[in-house]
């Protein structure tokens, strides 16, 4: 049972840019951006396709790589220069937290040498930290765990931040990695613009409807 928000009637939210990363394909604003063609692992191949040089990318775990790439492609098309460095919030979400890296860390522990490099990535918000470092974002952060992509909850967070004057735009994200599969969705949400968005329309976009 979802409560109808008070302010949804008053406050409109707008979608500036969105990016979908699923197995083997990247779409930006609904259009195919690249496909997995070469021998590299998928995320590495996307990284190459963008043409970015950012050596830290190779130190990241898979969850952070997914979230980082999604942020890169979304923010590059969102006129970030129009915002002060603390006006853009990053709110990410997923189902499994950092479980894949948790398991990898736990294996190193059971093999006798716990890996500090892996342990650092056993928090889901590390990917948000990576994004803030890359784009010099000093704004609000949050990481939410939901059983499935929850547009309602993410947009509710945007509304609450805008109402509190805590952000002028929010990069929202859903990043799930499991057994080599990737499910990433990223959107740049603003308080003013032309392309109004609701939880229903955002869910439709995520589902590819």
């Amino acid at each position: 049972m979802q409560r109808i928000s008070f302010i949804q009637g008053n406050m409109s939210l707008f979608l500036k840019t969105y990016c979908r990363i699923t197995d083997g394909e990247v779409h930006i604003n609904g259009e195919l951006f690249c496909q997995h063609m070469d021998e590299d692992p998928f995320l590495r191949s996307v990284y190459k396709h963008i043409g970015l040089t950012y050596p830290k990318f190779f130190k990241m775990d898979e969850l952070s790589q997914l979230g980082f790439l999604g942020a890169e492609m979304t923010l590059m098309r969102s006129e970030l220069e129009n915002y002060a460095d603390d006006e853009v919030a990053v709110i990410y979400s997923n189902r499994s937290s950092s479980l894949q890296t948790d398991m990898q860390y736990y294996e190193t522990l059971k093999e006798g040498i716990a890996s500090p490099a892996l342990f650092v990535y056993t928090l889901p918000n590390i990917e948000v930290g990576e994004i803030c470092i890359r784009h010099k974002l000093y704004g609000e952060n949050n990481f939410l765990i939901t059983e499935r992509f929850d547009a309602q909850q993410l947009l509710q967070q945007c509304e609450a931040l805008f109402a509190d004057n805590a952000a002028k735009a929010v990069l929202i994200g859903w990043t799930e990695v499991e057994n080599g599969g990737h499910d990433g969705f990223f959107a740049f949400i603003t308080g003013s613009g032309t392309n109004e968005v609701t939880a229903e329309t955002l869910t439709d976009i995520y589902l590819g409807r």
Partner: protein
Amino acid sequence: MSEVYIGAKSILCPLGDTPSKVYEAMLHGETGLKPVDNPFGIHTMSHVGLIPDHLIVQEHMDSLKLTNMLAACYERSVSKLRFDAFQDEAGLVIICTTKGNIDKIGQPEDPRLPLGRLGRFLKQSFDLANDPMIISNACISGALGIITAARLIRAGEYDHVLVLGGDIVSEFTLSGFASLHALTDGVCKPYDKNRAGINLGEAAAGLVLSNDETIFKGSHSEYISGASANDANHISGPSRTGEGLHRSIERTLKAAEVEATEIGYLSAHGTGTSFNDEMESIAFGRSGLSETPVNSLKGYFGHTLGAAGVIETLLGLEGMKRKQLVASLGFEEMGVSQPMNIIQETTAPRSEYFLKTASGFGGCNASALFKVI
């Protein structure tokens, strides 16, 4: 801005299971950090804050430690309200945790391992109207839960929000902090010259935020403002300039139209690591808080990770009500570069304004301001 009230405290930590028991123990200088021989087979001299078994209620259907802890706090917080506000759609429960039921790792088929499970268990057990929101944002999870709750109430999304923070001490987290060489031998000494790292502790705690002050049976305080900010600097090391923490404090005070000099008490993060404590001293200095009475509570029950922001806010509110702020346990000799007014014996707050701060991996920082009369 509409008013947001905070109260209905519940707590479960190494020092006890009621706010007054825990606070009395702290006033007596007791610590819940104890030596444990090779905890989980990990070789460490670091003392650990474990909740005594007899304090954890086993009557709930889920046999897991953390879910039992959260359920106990849910019941105790709700018992301090005039009605159970969370079986109605105007009420929301927020769970703040870094690792949830991480003690189930190694049993990957256990359906209770994924973090999202915690919400489902509470929803079923207590017949909650809404799915609980789960925040997992490293060591600021608890503080961020409180700020998020207040924002949702002010935005008109909910009338009442119960913020539950909880994390356990497990083989997973203890071995991880050991691998980072972040654990101190013995007991931590926040801001002290000889500080050498953290202790891990486990805790659960609950606070209710509401737009209706008549919902509380007992005393309550006021939430004023709060903000989070990222350092944009490093994923596991704090900023050398305290940038994110400074910015979060600035935004919090600006929104409240309160000057730094008006703050009566600052409850800091104070983990007892060299870098964290130094970073805080710089951020507090930049924010005009060098003279503000400040303590870290980590010496009493350790670093409780996702619970830290909730349990430390709760005990800060308790101290403000009593007008007895406890000493920063473990502190003897100044060990940070910027001046700080560290509380060394029980003292009264300078004003009714209480500021709580937290910082964590991922470069995240949060602060929240309260008014306690």
